[in-house]
């Protein structure tokens, strides 16, 4: 069981690196639409999710779905548990969002700032932000 989980995580890590490579190498020719599809695959690999499990554009909810899947808790319960502890007020899903953005910064060589982060509420906004940062990097 543990072996299976470990293998799955390693595989999804490889998958995410694959999409980083695709995006970075094809950066100059990628349309926003194609970039969005590839970035969705990247995010799914990072979040250990399948694309069909993403049923919302709300990025915080996507983080929540991922966190709940990881914790194998029913929908809605994970944040309640986190909020109850209230240490600083951060939820697991919120931390997941930030860790994800820090990974994006590191793996794509860009700088999504705290000011950018706080403005990102949806996956669409996230893609717009990253796409723009990659374009700026290219210039």
């Amino acid at each position, binding site marked *: 069981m543990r072996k299976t989980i470990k293998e799955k995580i390693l595989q999804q890590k490889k998958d995410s690196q694959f999409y980083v490579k695709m995006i970075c190498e094809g950066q100059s020719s990628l349309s926003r639409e194609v970039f969005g599809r590839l970035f969705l695959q990247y995010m799914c690999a990072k979040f250990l999710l399948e694309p069909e499990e993403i049923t919302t554009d709300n990025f915080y909810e996507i983080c929540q779905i991922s966190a709940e899947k990881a914790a194998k808790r029913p929908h809605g319960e994970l944040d309640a548990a986190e909020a109850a502890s*209230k*240490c*600083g*007020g*951060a939820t697991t899903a*919120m*931390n997941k*969002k*930030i*860790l994800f*953005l*820090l*990974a994006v*910064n590191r793996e794509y060589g860009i700088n999504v*700032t*705290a*000011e950018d*982060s*706080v403005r990102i509420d949806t996956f669409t906004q996230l893609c717009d932000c990253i796409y723009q940062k990659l374009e700026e990097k290219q210039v």
Partner: protein
Amino acid sequence: MYDVKKSIDVELNVQLVYTALIHEYAYEGPCRFGPPEALTQEFDLMNQAEIFKMWTQGYGGALSHIPGIHLLDPLYIKMSDEFFITEEEEQKLVDRVGKADIFIFTGMRGEGIMKEFAMRYHVPVAGEGMFASTIEHAVLNARGYESYAILDLPDAIRLLKALRTRKALARTKVLGVTRNNSHYSMGGQDAFISNDMVTKKLGVRFNYFSFHEFLDMMHVNEHGKNHTLPGRQVYNLTDKDMEEVKAWSKELTDGSVENDVQEHYIENSVKAAVLIQKLCEHFGCNAFTAVCPDGCATRRMNEEQFTFCFSHSLLNEMGIPSGCEYDLLGTLSIAALANLTGKAPYMGNTQPCIWRGKQVEGEFAGIGYIEDMDRTQNIYYSGHATPNRLIHGFDSEKTAYSLRPFTHSGWGATMRIDFSQFRGETITLMRFDPLCEKIMVAKGTVLGGFGYTTTGCSEGVYFEVADKYEYFHKQAKFGLHMPLVFGDHIEDVKMLGEVLGMEVVTA
């Protein structure tokens, strides 16, 4: 309509403050732990910004929907793990001193910042969240500074409503129409011992005004001819005022279920309500009380053919606290209850029912036997011919009413509400004590009503209390008139007591 600056329109300015702890280095230790990436400064910058956003949108969003609460732009104060804030950050807070009525802090390890700020600038602060609230309140309370602990959102709302009520009381100025002295009337001996002490304690001001001057001003277009102020151009009603009197009277007549009062007698009573507003605008007042038996004994009300009952009903509905019998204490209790609950209080003589068999004592007050008397001893009544249509709330649908004369002769319009329709509903009653050091608050369940079809002061509500004797002996230290509203507001009044620094006595 005259421009009366009502206390129910007073807003409480609330400042949310988030202290963001940004660690300068990544390290683990007894107070922080986690994967390396979650310990970096970059992580903290994003994490704290996210929490601030969530807090101000969620918590602040909920508070901003509370009537009378005005949220100032939330403040984000950065603090490093050296646990101090720079002068620039402190200035953000200082800029809001004088603008905010309360500063609500949250954030990790911000208690010291909050403490220092409260002690330096003497501003009320509250801690939100489990650690901040408990620590901060213990620290500041012990040092004699004003502070509050907030448990959750309902607790915060209760606190803010109480603080808003305190501010509203401090903006209250009572037009007190008196005959013989400024502190109490013949019918309202259970008054504040010192009105000046009330001003010191609550910030309430009093504008004393002659009963005779008031009655002279009821005479239309006779400016300069008043016996009490000869040659002085004062505030007598005018033709324009009378247009309003007639329109308002017609509206009240048309809206009544039954009307036993002749048109000109209704207008006589409405004239008083318009003159009160005119004088309130002139003197900057927003609450009212006038003598009753003392005025009655002058025989001038018999001459003018009106009573103040209708004015009390109408003004209380408008959010202008209006109390019978020059009861300044009761009037301020109305003001407090109205502001705290958003409802128009009804104030009457509040007494336990006493009976043997079916013989009820005090039938002169209009009360009598009700079947509940066979079931329980714990029956009280509250009665005056001054009910109003908004005891359930200023925003509620107006209760149906009838108009009856106060006097046998037919003059003195009064509003009558049939309280029996509210059987089973909870009411809350409150009153300050004569020293202005305590508040009594009590709860009851409506059993029925009396006086809906009659004349005189015999209109009111029967209600059941937990223990009649306990209630009575506690109330006897506070006074006769206990303003009431529908609903259970015991906890709200307890919070008001906390905010005003008053002991709260419950029954």
